[in-house]
C-alpha cells in the first residue's frame, strides 16, 4: 500500500454552540485505502462528512485533497474535484427514475457530456445491481435499492474519495453482504473509501484501517482488530469491557 495521503485533516474544529463536533481533529486517508470510522452517536462522524463534502464550514483548521485546500470550495466544486458523499438516510430525487437520478450525477458531478454521461450511468447502474430498476421512479424503491442508488449516484460523479455514511444501516445480513461486495469492487478499481458504519461486522471485513471518534476527538487509529481491542475503544462503545465482536450483527 502506498502511504501517499489523498485526504488530510489538519486540526479541524467545529462546534454548534456548546456542542463540539470536531476538536482539533487530525488524520489522513491514504490513496487507495478503505478507512472505516466508528464511534458512538454524537461523536461527530456525520458532521465530519459534512465538513469534508462542504455541507458544513469548518470553524478552524484545514482539509486538503492531494495537498490542495478544500475549505473555501462549494459542495459542487468539491464534487467536481472528486470528493463525493452519500447520506445516511438515502435522499434520491423521488420524482425521477433511477436512470435520471444517476444521469444528473454523471453530467453534473462527473462533468460528462451526452453519450459519455449515458455510458457512465449505465455502467454504474450495472455495478450497483440496479439494472432491473433503471426505469423505476425512485420514490417507489425499497430500502436496499435506495441505498444502492445513493451509492450509484455518488459513483456516477467519478469520485476519487467516496464518503459512505452508514450504507449498511437498517439492512438484513444478506443485504449488508451485497453492499459490502459493491464497496469492495469500487475500492478495487482504485477509489479511496472513507466509511462511517455502525455495522462493525461489515467494516471489519472490508476496511484496511479504522479510526475511532468520540466527542469530536480521535480516540484510536490503526488496524481494525487492534483498534477494536483497545480498552478505551471498548469502553466508549459498550460502557463495559465486552468485546465488540460479541455484539450480534453490529452495534445499535
Amino acid at each position, binding site marked *: 500500500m502506498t502511504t501517499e495521503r489523498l485526504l488530510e485533516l489538519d486540526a479541524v474544529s467545529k462546534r454548534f454552540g456548546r456542542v463540539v463536533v470536531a476538536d482539533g481533529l487530525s488524520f489522513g486517508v491514504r490513496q487507495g485505502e478503505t478507512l472505516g470510522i466508528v464511534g458512538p452517536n454524537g461523536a461527530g462522524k456525520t458532521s465530519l462528512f459534512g465538513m469534508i*463534502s*462542504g*455541507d458544513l464550514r469548518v470553524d478552524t483548521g484545514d482539509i486538503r485533497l492531494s495537498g490542495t485546500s478544500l475549505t473555501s470550495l*462549494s*459542495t*459542487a466544486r468539491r*464534487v*467536481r474535484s472528486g470528493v*463525493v*458523499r*452519500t*447520506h445516511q438516510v438515502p*435522499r*434520491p*430525487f*423521488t*420524482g*425521477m427514475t433511477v436512470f*435520471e*437520478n444517476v*444521469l*444528473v*450525477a454523471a*453530467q*453534473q*458531478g*462527473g*462533468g460528462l457530456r451526452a453519450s459519455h454521461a449515458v455510458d457512465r450511468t449505465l455502467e454504474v447502474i450495472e455495478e450497483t445491481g440496479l439494472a432491473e430498476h433503471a426505469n423505476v*421512479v425512485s*420514490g*417507489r424503491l425499497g430500502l436496499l435499492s435506495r441505498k444502492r442508488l445513493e451509492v450509484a*449516484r*455518488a459513483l*456516477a*460523479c467519478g469520485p476519487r474519495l467516496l464518503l459512505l455514511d452508514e450504507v449498511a444501516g437498517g439492512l438484513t445480513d444478506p443485504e449488508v453482504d451485497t453492499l459490502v461486495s459493491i464497496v469492495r469492487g469500487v475500492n478495487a478499481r482504485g477509489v479511496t473509501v472513507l466509511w462511517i458504519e455502525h455495522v462493525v461486522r461489515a467494516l471489519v471485513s472490508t476496511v484496511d484501517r479504522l479510526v475511532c471518534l468520540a466527542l469530536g476527538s480521535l480516540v484510536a487509529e490503526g488496524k481494525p482488530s487492534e483498534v477494536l481491542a483497545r480498552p478505551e475503544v471498548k469502553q466508549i462503545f459498550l460502557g463495559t469491557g465486552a468485546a465488540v465482536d460479541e455484539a450480534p450483527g453490529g452495534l445499535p
Partner: protein
Amino acid sequence: MIWVNAVIQGLLLGGLFALFACGLSLLFGVLGIINLAHGDLAVLGAYVAVALLPSVHTNVLWALLFVPPLFAVFGYVSQRTVMGRSMRSGPLTTLLVTFGLSVVIQNALLEGFSADSHSFTLGALTTRSLHPASDISLSWLRMGILVVAVLVLVVVQLFLSRTGIGRQIRALADDDEAAAITGVNTRHVAAIAAAVAFATVALAGLAFGTYAQFSPTSGSNLLIFAFEAVIIGGLGSLWGTLAGGCVLGLAQTIGAQIDPTFGVLAGHLVFLAVLAVRPNGLMPATVEA
C-alpha cells in the same frame, strides 16, 4: 348557442390564466417561493412594453421579442441576489421579500405612469374574429393566446423532462442538498428556473394587456387568479395548471353569462369547491415527495 359561446370564451380565457399560473407554479414547485409579486411582475412586463415600444415599433407583437428575454435576465439576477439570499433565512422571509417587491413595483409604476390605465392596440387584429355560427365568436387574438399558453407549457414541460438543465431543476426541487452532493450548482440552476418563470410571466403580462386595460394596481387581482388556477389544477403539475386555468376561465364566463356581475365570484366559488372536495387539485403531481 350563447352557452356554447360562453364555454368557448371560458376556455380561451383559461389559456391566459394558465400562462399566468405557469411561472407561479414553477417558482413554487422548484424553489418553494410563494411569489406575491407575481401579478405585479406581469403588469410590469406590460408597462415595459408601453415604455419601450414607441422607440421600436408600435405593434405590441414586437414586445414579444424583447420583454420576455429582459425578464429572464431580471429573474436570474433577482434569484441570485434578493430572492436567493432571503431563501437562506426561511420561507417567511421570502414571502415578505416578494410582498415588498410587489409594493415597490406597484408604487414605481404609479410614480412613472400615473394611475391611468393603458391597453395595447393591435390594429385590425384586436377585433378580427371567426364566426362559425351566430352568437359564436372566435377572436384570433384570444385563440393565439391560448395557443401560446399551450406552447409555453409544452416547452417548459419538455425542458424540465428532457434537458440536462431541466433534470437539474427537478433534482433541485426534490432535494437541494442531495442535488449539491451530486455536483449540481444549485444557485445557478435555481436562478435559471427563476429566469424561465419570469419570462413566462412577462409573456402573460403582454397577453393580459391585449385582453383588458391594465393599471399599476392590476397585479393583485391577477395574482389571485394565478393562485386559483395553480391550486385548482394541483401543485407541481403543469398540465394541471392548464386544466386549472380552463376551469377557472369557464367558471368566470359561464358565471358572467348567468349574471354579468357574477363572473369573478363564480370563479372564486368554484375554487373554494375544488379546495373542499379535492384539496390536492384536479391533477396533482403523482409521486409522493
